[in-house]
């Protein structure tokens, strides 16, 4: 991995929408108060009445070939989180010398998938097809965002399963630090689709009850929807909550759906992010884990965390509150990390009652007030794709 970069990459704004709240602060507050958005094992976003800024953006779709996509959830969710992030950072839209990185595994999938299934079953006459079917559900999401923000700068979609938005933040970190762009909007959006819900169910990874990460009785994950975006920039015009100090990618090269049993790739990602930041494990005040609540993920990740940090650094997962929003999860949970850093309050692991003895991490004390100077966000994904991010509070020299 690389040596510490000389150019700080500041986080000047962020926004989120989740199954518990329509903004970042509300999502954090739900986690703090233990209010879960999981219903019958899933976390669906209830779209509120569109805010004026979201409605104004979406209205532009009517005059484009993408009009049919207005009926989906992914775009309103993404735009809501983007508008919140831009407003917090004081950005007036995107400039062509900015970057835009989007993470998703489904994009506009549900709209597309519904028509595709009916087409495959011979139930959709050609004259009833909408333009949603004539798109790539991932690519069109970025195409529409480019259109709505009049953006022609560097952009792409990362679709590296559940670590995708962590990868996107790591890539945005590199783009800004190296000067390829001065500012970068980075985040993810994920919506529930039949493919993902029934697919994860077929792999016997879903829990019908609220997830219990790291608990001895955990039974699986709660799939959910969310969007979260973060503004990264070299020049700190306003107040920055924190900076991205280090980030890293790694691969397990072990199995297509199961994590390495000893967390080999996750160890490499966390050590890589620390090395990238020029920090020792002891500098980290809090770890926000991937912590899905699946049997194998939590065990593998727990072993990895102990390998890197020992059993002294507090660890949490908040997925019992907002669920597992796949590609968007890294960005959503990064937003929770940043909000915790701003408030100086640690979130615990809701649903954890009887810690699994095989996971020998130190579980964080929920609601503990302490300066969070350095926080690590960890992510794992299908295909053995791992990522880790290190955030350091503004004003900290480390």
């Amino acid at each position, binding site marked *: 991995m690389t040596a510490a970069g000389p150019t700080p990459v500041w986080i000047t704004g962020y926004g989120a929408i989740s199954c518990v709240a329509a903004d970042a602060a509300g999502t954090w507050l739900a986690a703090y108060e233990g209010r879960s958005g999981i219903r019958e094992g899933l976390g669906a976003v209830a779209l509120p009445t569109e805010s004026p800024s979201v409605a104004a953006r979406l209205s532009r779709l009517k005059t484009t070939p993408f009009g049919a996509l207005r009926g989906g959830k992914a775009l309103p969710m993404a735009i809501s989180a983007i508008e919140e992030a831009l407003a917090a950072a004081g950005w007036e839209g995107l400039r062509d010398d900015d970057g835009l990185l989007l993470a998703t595994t489904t994009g506009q999938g549900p709209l597309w998938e519904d028509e595709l299934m009916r087409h*495959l079953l011979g139930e959709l006459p050609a004259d009833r097809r909408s333009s949603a079917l004539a798109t790539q559900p991932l690519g069109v999401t970025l195409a529409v965002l480019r259109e709505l923000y009049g953006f022609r700068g560097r952009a792409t979609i990362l679709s*590296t399963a559940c670590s995708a938005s962590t990868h996107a933040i790591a890539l945005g970190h590199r783009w800004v630090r190296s000067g390829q762009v001065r500012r970068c909007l980075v985040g993810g959006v994920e919506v529930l689709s039949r493919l993902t819900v029934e697919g994860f*169910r077929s792999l016997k990874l879903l829990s019908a009850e609220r997830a219990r990460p790291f608990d001895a009785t955990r039974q699986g994950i709660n799939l959910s929807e969310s969007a979260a975006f973060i503004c990264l920039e070299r020049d700190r015009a306003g107040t920055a909550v924190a900076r991205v100090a280090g980030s890293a990618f790694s691969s397990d090269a072990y199995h297509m759906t199961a994590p390495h049993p000893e967390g080999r790739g996750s160890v490499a990602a966390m050590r890589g992010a620390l090395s990238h930041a020029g920090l020792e494990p002891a500098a980290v005040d809090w770890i926000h884990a991937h912590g899905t609540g699946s049997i194998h993920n939590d065990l593998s990740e727990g072993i990895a965390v102990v390998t890197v940090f020992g059993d002294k650094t507090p660890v949490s997962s908040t997925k019992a509150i907002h669920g597992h929003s796949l590609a968007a999860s890294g960005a959503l949970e990064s937003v929770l990390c940043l909000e915790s850093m701003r408030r100086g309050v640690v979130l615990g692991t809701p649903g954890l009652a009887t810690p699994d003895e095989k996971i020998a991490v130190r579980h964080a004390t929920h609601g503990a007030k302490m300066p969070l100077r350095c926080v690590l966000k960890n992510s794992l994904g299908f295909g053995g794709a791992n990522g880790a991010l290190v955030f350091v509070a503004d004003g900290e020299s480390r």
Partner: protein
Amino acid sequence: MTIWVVGAGLSESTRAEALRDDPDFRRATTNVRLAASAVEKALAALAAPLSDAGSRVALVVATGHGELEPTAGFLQELGRTNVARPLLFQNSLHNTAAGFLALRLALVGPVTTVSDAMFSGEDAVDVARTLLDGDADIAVVVGVDTFPAVLSELLPSLYPDGFRPVDGAAAIILANEVGRRQFGRGAALAVETIERNFGTDSAGETPSQFFDADAIAVLAQAALAGAASTASPLVRRKPDGTSSSTTVRWDA
């Protein structure tokens, strides 16, 4: 930063078909087999085995459509029988080819998947360039797309100008200066700039074959053609009228 193409390969359908008989590919998708056949050829050009670079090998896979065949299969079976098949689901992810290739090549460094419709290939080269500036010295960059026959009726609405995508994959091995010294063999193609034109009045020859990540195929073809046959820039007109222009040069 200059990056070098030190290996290149295009998929071969016969080799991809033959991989069906390889036990390691028993559960592999068509995308995976095509990608693997292209990567095999690209790696054969290197002066040293990829494993010599340890964790400083990156893998970036570009795909516009992703895994349409298992996705359609999963949805069709779910719709007809209400049965969800786990293998089809795990193979339906856009990240499937990257995960499989990382496993096959024992890659433990950065591995990621890019999907940006017709700019997927250009984006993957850009992402690899970023990773070669600190994270890795060599990067396997693969473009792959397939379009199953069961969905062929949708092609005219996806590609209204008469473009018809081919099933194909291409791989290039990109290297920074360190990687070039370790893995290159003599002259190499330098990739200097990639420009995207979002206008609909773009020039450039319409490719006779097309898949959404084909910018990688274009670079692979240039690298395989040699210095005497490589024009610069490499201009690609996309089915939606956008285009890209990649500036390259040969260095002995």
